[in-house]
């Protein structure tokens, strides 16, 4: 290890140890401090802009560092941001709220932990809302880790509202069918028979022994479905098979990367509402009146977006300058 790298590593370790063992916790900035920090960040960008114009663009690691800082610092700030509800998220909520108690909802958790920061807040808000309104949930996953994410959402609902732990019964109010490989073929077979794809639930309880599934044979016994998706198989496959072939009414929560690909299906009426990325999750949390992680992260997102915009401007200035020099 070179001296420079050794110093950097040592500094990082010391800072982390200080944070872990010395600093008082939790940390919260007063509004004045928050403003001062924001202004300081602004000044750093002004300086970088100045350096770029002078022909000394900063290296990529500085960009990474500043993006990191812009994500972390808002954790400790007290700013409140206004949040406008988009029509597609409103549509998801309206559909969920219109379900009578006792309705059966099929929820497919088609994502894994890497995508959880975006999708887990939606899933948690949905599960909490459903439990509080006596909406029955049949959970499953086309991704292996999906059912575990579903269990985490259930656990989060119980932690948030401990009374639900006694009220909501596994097998009666919700069930987790687990993962099944086969992508859209699983959905296709479910159109004929759920049991053929899930002979038992996640805990190996036979399908026929689960009270909630007593009268559920295929999509026609489902009142509404929601799909939390981070890629393939996901919302698109559900639309192609379950919606277009079996007329399953479906809404979806997608990662922001995937959302643009799903909009055409929303516009064509194949999808009843869409929550896109963390902002979609925050809107859904607001509508369900169950604020969670997405609402908390909104400020960090906003800061990071501003930083990215500034870097796009700075990057273009650097590009134009280098082109001019080349000429």
């Amino acid at each position: 290890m070179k001296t420079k790298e050794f110093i950097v590593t040592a500094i990082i370790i010391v800072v982390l140890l200080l944070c872990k063992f010395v600093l008082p916790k939790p940390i919260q900035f007063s509004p004045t401090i928050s403003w001062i920090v924001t202004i300081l960040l602004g000044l750093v960008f002004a300086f970088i802009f100045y350096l770029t114009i002078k022909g000394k663009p900063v290296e990529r690691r500085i960009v990474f560092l500043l993006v990191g800082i812009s994500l972390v610092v808002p954790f400790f700030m007290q700013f409140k941001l206004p949040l406008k509800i988009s029509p597609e998220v409103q549509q998801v909520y309206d559909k969920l709220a219109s379900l009578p108690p006792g309705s059966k909802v099929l929820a497919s958790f088609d994502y894994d932990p890497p995508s959880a920061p975006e999708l887990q807040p939606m899933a948690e808000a949905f599960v909490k809302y459903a439990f509080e309104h006596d909406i029955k949930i049949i959970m499953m996953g086309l991704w292996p880790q999906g059912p575990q994410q579903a269990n985490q959402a259930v656990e989060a609902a119980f932690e948030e509202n401990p009374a639900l732990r006694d009220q909501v019964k596994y097998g009666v109010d919700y069930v987790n069918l687990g993962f099944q490989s086969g992508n859209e073929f699983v959905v296709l077979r479910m159109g004929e028979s759920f049991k053929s794809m899930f002979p038992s639930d996640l805990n190996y309880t036979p399908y026929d022994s689960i009270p909630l599934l007593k009268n559920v044979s295929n999509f026609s016994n489902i009142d509404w479905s929601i799909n939390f998706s981070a890629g393939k198989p996901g919302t698109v496959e559900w639309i192609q098979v379950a919606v277009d072939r079996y007329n399953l009414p479906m809404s979806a929560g997608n990662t922001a990367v995937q959302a643009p690909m799903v909009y055409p299906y929303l516009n064509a009426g194949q999808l009843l509402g869409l929550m896109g990325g963390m902002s979609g999750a925050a809107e859904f949390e607001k509508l369900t009146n169950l604020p969670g992680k997405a609402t908390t992260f909104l400020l960090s997102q906003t800061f990071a977006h501003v930083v990215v915009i500034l870097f796009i401007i700075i990057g273009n200035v650097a590009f134009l300058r280098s082109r001019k020099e080349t000429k």
Partner: protein
Amino acid sequence: MLNRVLLLCLALVWTVSVSVTAQDVAEGGIDTLSLPLPAPAQNVVAANHVYDDGEVIDVNWDKSPDDPENILGYIVYRAETDGAFDSIRTLLPGETFFSDDNVEDEIPYKYQIGVIGENGVSLSGESELAVATWELFNFGMWNTFLWMFVFCGSVIGFIISAKSGRKLYIRKIGGLEALEEAVGRATEMGRPILFIPGILDMDDVQTLAAITILGKVARVVADYDSKIRMPVSRSLVLTAARETIKESYTSAGRPDGYNEDMVQYVTDEQFGYVAAVNGIMVREKPATCLYLGAFFAESLILAETGNSIGAIQIAGTARPGQLPFFVAACDYTLIGEELFAASAYLSEDPKQLGSLKGQDVGKVIAMFGLLVGTAAMTLSVAWQVPATQWILDLMNNLFTTN
């Protein structure tokens, strides 16, 4: 909306507590609290759901005149010919349709609709008996059949034409010439070529296209005696890729140059795979990186790392969400269908060429539908030109699913 749900909860509780069944009440309803009941639903019609396998009966009715102000919802009752009515579903106000998919074929059923008011349920008259029957063909999908017939017919026609030796014209695909140049550069620099076939399995058409292009790339690699490195995330892709490269080396007359370690399985886990490929990139510094196939969140990470090591990068994917990163970070990008076109162009395989030409026929149909449809819509609906209404109806018939 919440109020409506609460009201419906009340209605359900009420329904259960008084255990209303159609047998207990006279037509027109009961009056448990001596208060007025909502007006009943009318014209209840039950009929076989057409074009299914005999599992559904559709029930339609006219709304209660008190809907929505003075009702809490509807209850659907069902009975066999001489049996008692049982409630089978509760619906929200405003509903006038119910598909009963829990019936057995060839058994006649009759239906009755109950309107839930705050003071009780008023019942409609009984429907005629209806029987669910199955049909072999779904004639409601005639237009889908028509277009599929035209589309598949074109594909088959072009394949036959290509097989008979007719030269099918395909325009030049930008970026393809760069492939050979990129392999040549890697040879000159004595560094390997990294080929990433996406992260989906052999059941994805993009992976298939990538493997076809791999065949051509491997052939050039074998000719130039260069090196190819291919970490994969699916076991089936491993199998297919090894066979393809082996064939290319054999056809180049250098079977001894082939080594199974050229293709290496890493893991199915998306980011585990990305971490490993990133590691390979920064350590082995390939001169050329080819990303062809289906990509997800890893696209930008890979392209960015490839960019940072100064490799020539050529990408191609049909995942619209990932194209922006490849366009931004790579030297050449095959956008969407260009990936498949490139595969057909390089392989000169009659099946692929025929399919591509057949798809062009599909695009012509879509363009025709779009042009004529939007024009007819604008003229007849927005500008109220009645003479164009029949064109609009025709287009809707041709392009609307039933």
